């Protein structure tokens, strides 16, 4: 039922938009547009995040800015956000109660309880927790299959070397294949901030310009990149860390080479790093029939 709700426009104000419209399976449940459009055609201001392996976000801070303290809380928000689904929960509940199938489905799923917003978010959250990606080429390499190319193997070295990419302090490692630490960093995008990110949520100026490190898993499908989708390609992202860093007061000290603009990777290292990053793609995940539209 969670899956049915996720793909059903019934939760939106005018019945035209489902969660899946901005979290598309083919894009690892993200949106290829820089900013998603709500039911009235109004764009948001952050790039839609992919949805995968969410049960392992132990910090329980969701969204780019950590504003949702649980997956269920995250689901509450877009339904009523005026520039997203622009609905009210009483209205959404009424639509579900008047539907030919949902009353029975809720009864079966929740032991006879009546439909309400809490149960809706629980059902969708449980579906989202089933969105598990763990079969990329790199995952199979970790399981002992000898399938990576020499260039991809060089790429993991660039990723894991403190004197080269130094990506691993924020983006996981072979023993943390979530490929994120799920915490918040200022990664040197701007000298001053139009979007305060975590700082807007915590009210602490030390958090200004910090955003949650996104998982690198499936990034072949999740362009564009960064919280504001400013980079259209993976090459632009790598170039940012190599030459494009900008100092600001809250920049993470892990952005060690900011004075030189970045870690100054050679073209060969960049190509290797990119090859490794693409080995994190899991086509089985985006094509899994259990994760597609059932409606």
């Amino acid at each position, binding site marked *: 039922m969670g899956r049915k709700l996720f793909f059903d426009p019934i939760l939106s104000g005018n019945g035209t938009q489902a969660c899946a419209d901005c979290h598309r399976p083919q894009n690892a449940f993200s949106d290829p547009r820089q900013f998603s459009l709500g039911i009235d055609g109004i764009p948001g201001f952050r790039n839609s995040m992919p949805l995968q392996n969410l049960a392992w976000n132990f910090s329980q801070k969701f969204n780019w800015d950590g504003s949702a303290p649980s997956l269920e809380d995250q689901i509450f928000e877009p339904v009523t956000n005026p520039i997203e689904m622009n609905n009210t929960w009483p209205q959404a509940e009424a639509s579900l109660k008047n539907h030919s199938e949902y009353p029975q489905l809720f009864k079966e799923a929740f032991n006879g309880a009546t439909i309400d917003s809490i149960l809706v978010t629980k059902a969708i959250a449980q579906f989202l927790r089933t969105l598990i990606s763990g079969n990329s080429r790199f995952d199979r390499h970790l399981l002992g299959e000898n399938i990576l190319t020499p260039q991809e193997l060089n790429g993991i070295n660039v990723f894991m070397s403190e004197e080269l990419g130094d990506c691993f302090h924020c983006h996981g490692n072979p023993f943390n294949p979530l490929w994120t630490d799920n915490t918040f960093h200022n990664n040197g995008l701007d000298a001053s901030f139009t979007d305060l990110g975590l700082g807007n949520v915590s009210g602490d100026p030390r958090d200004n310009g910090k955003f949650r490190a996104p998982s690198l898993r499936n990034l072949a499908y999740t362009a564009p990149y960064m919280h504001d989708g400013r980079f259209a390609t993976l090459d632009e992202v790598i170039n940012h860390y190599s030459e494009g860093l900008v100092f600001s007061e809250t920049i993470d*000290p*892990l952005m060690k080479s900011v004075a030189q603009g970045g870690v100054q990777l050679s073209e060969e290292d960049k190509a290797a790093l990119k090859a490794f990053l693409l080995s994190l793609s899991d086509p089985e995940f985006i094509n899994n029939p259990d994760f597609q539209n059932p409606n």
Partner: protein
Amino acid sequence: MKKLFITLLVSLVFIACDSDDDNNTPADVAVNLKFSQNFNELQVTALNLSTTTYVNEMNQELNITRLRYLLSRLVLTNSNGETFSLSPYHLVDISRPETLTLNTNVTIPEGDYNLSFVYGFNEEDNQDGAYNDLNAVSWNWPQMLGGGYHFLQMDGQYNVNTEPAPYNFHNGTARVSEGVFEQNFVNFNLPNTLSISEGNTININMDIAEWFRNPNTWDLNVYNTPLMPNYDAQKLMQQNAATVFSASVE
């Protein structure tokens, strides 16, 4: 058989009574740990992260934005040589208050003890990927540098009032050369006696200033980042670790 059983039962009753009647038997108390940090006379807490400026032995002004460290094999030993294992390992993250206390669920008789622990993991414990909770917070040390886990991460900016530049004071296994590694943990057997009774907490403190001065005076203009693959920096850190920790009863 029956007679033997009765004899045993009577003995047990006697032993039990003997134990109950002995007013000198110390009460068992739970062991609670607390972790604190200072930089010379200044306490260092999450509130100080990024904002407070500290001055190291070389008069370099620095701030701290991240501080995490790992202690393992925390053990109390009494004067009879009996040992009480408190925790196999514990990661302190100054930004996560829940890691600054550790209620061990271990009970010990009231009395005098000495505390010992390992800074980082010893060779036996420092196994690649062996601890899921540490993997989840990306505490791993790269395999090309010997693998296992970080022992310390301290990040911030130095020369904060002139030309701020980042430092990454990260410690773990030292790489001598490609494929050749040297252990870098430190065994601590703190000399002071801890008198523990009901309601006490053992406070383990890290004096961060010691990382920068004892015995090696640390020059952040020379050793800032990257330090993980730098053998000399890794060994200097290990040497300086020897005086950073102390423990007291509160």
